[in-house]
């Protein structure tokens, strides 16, 4: 076992066992950040293919309406909302605001995130 700090330990960031809510926030922030970065790259690749002409555009629009892509888009929006709201908690704390109530602030912001995600899911999947 490597007991010393080491960059190869990063998988242990994602182990929530015996951790507190703050680590859950940390894990969520990491996962959503990785997801959003991956999305950014995919987005750039897709934009590159669109430049190939009207057929490429049409086939992309067809693909974008498939359920798998809609679920993917929902995950991206959810990641953006969670990451952004958690970022507000961290920024406030860094200015010395609400540090002692960071757990409550996190819970409150995640409730807001859940509400926003639910509204988005409704408009995406159930409003036709």
């Amino acid at each position, binding site marked *: 076992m490597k007991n010393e700090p*080491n*960059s190869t330990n990063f998988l242990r*960031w994602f182990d929530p066992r015996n951790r507190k809510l703050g680590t859950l926030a940390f894990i969520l922030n990491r996962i959503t950040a990785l997801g959003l970065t991956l999305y950014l790259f995919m987005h750039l690749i897709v934009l590159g293919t669109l430049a190939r002409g009207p057929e490429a555009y049409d086939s992309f629009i067809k693909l974008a309406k498939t359920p798998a892509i809609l679920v993917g888009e929902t995950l991206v929006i959810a990641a953006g909302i969670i990451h952004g709201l958690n970022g507000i908690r961290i920024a406030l*704390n*860094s200015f010395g605001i609400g540090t002692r109530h960071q757990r409550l602030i996190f819970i409150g912001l995640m409730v807001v995130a859940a509400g926003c995600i639910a509204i988005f899911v409704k408009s995406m999947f159930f409003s036709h």
Partner: protein
Amino acid sequence: MNETHWRVTFEIFRQKTGQPCHFDEYVMDVDPDEYVLDVVERIWAYNDRSLTFRHACHHSTCGACGMRVNSVEKLSCITPIREVARNGGKVRVEPLRNFPVLSDLVVDMGAFYLRLDDAKFSQVASLKDACLPFERKQQVREDGSYERLVDCLECGMCISACPVALTTPEYLGPGVLAAAQHAFHQSRDTSLLDLVDDQDGVWRCHSAYECTAVCPSNVDPGWRIMDLRKNILRHQISKIFSRRGQSR
């Protein structure tokens, strides 16, 4: 087995320098109200004299007995068996994370102590300055003539619990940053802000607050790190304005 007599299996981490690690199991008859350290000592005394671990005061003052008990950082001298096990159950005891293992449960905390020195950690403070600013102050004397030991025991448990310290050996870590905050609070020495205003200082923290959760001594390192950030920002802004004032 009755309420004062439990049988508990202790799984103890073992590793001698350069050798692979393993766990040794010891089935122990314990009183649930005795402390984890008492049983570890008994294992050493009656079962295995080669077991090494650190302790001194036995009453949560020296900070030497920090270990991971069932994966959570604890001062083993004040952790009752009842809190971490049940009759017939198991207790796993491991060394603190994020420090090199010297032998079994003993880790090398040398680098941490040197960093505390860099952060101008002082073991005593006036009564007025010894506690957290939002706590009720104890018997403050106007002349500041009374001092007491500061809260930090230098146990290193905050560094063991910190997820960022897992991956970044250069990170000063919560205990050191808390010491710097305390020293800055006492002295207003801005060189301390320069020390911690670094990617491996306060800006490395990712707000998991595990340090505050495990700290056995009410230091609240998470709060102190955020207070340092605030003071760094304040210091930088005031520097900008004083430069403008001078150039007029």
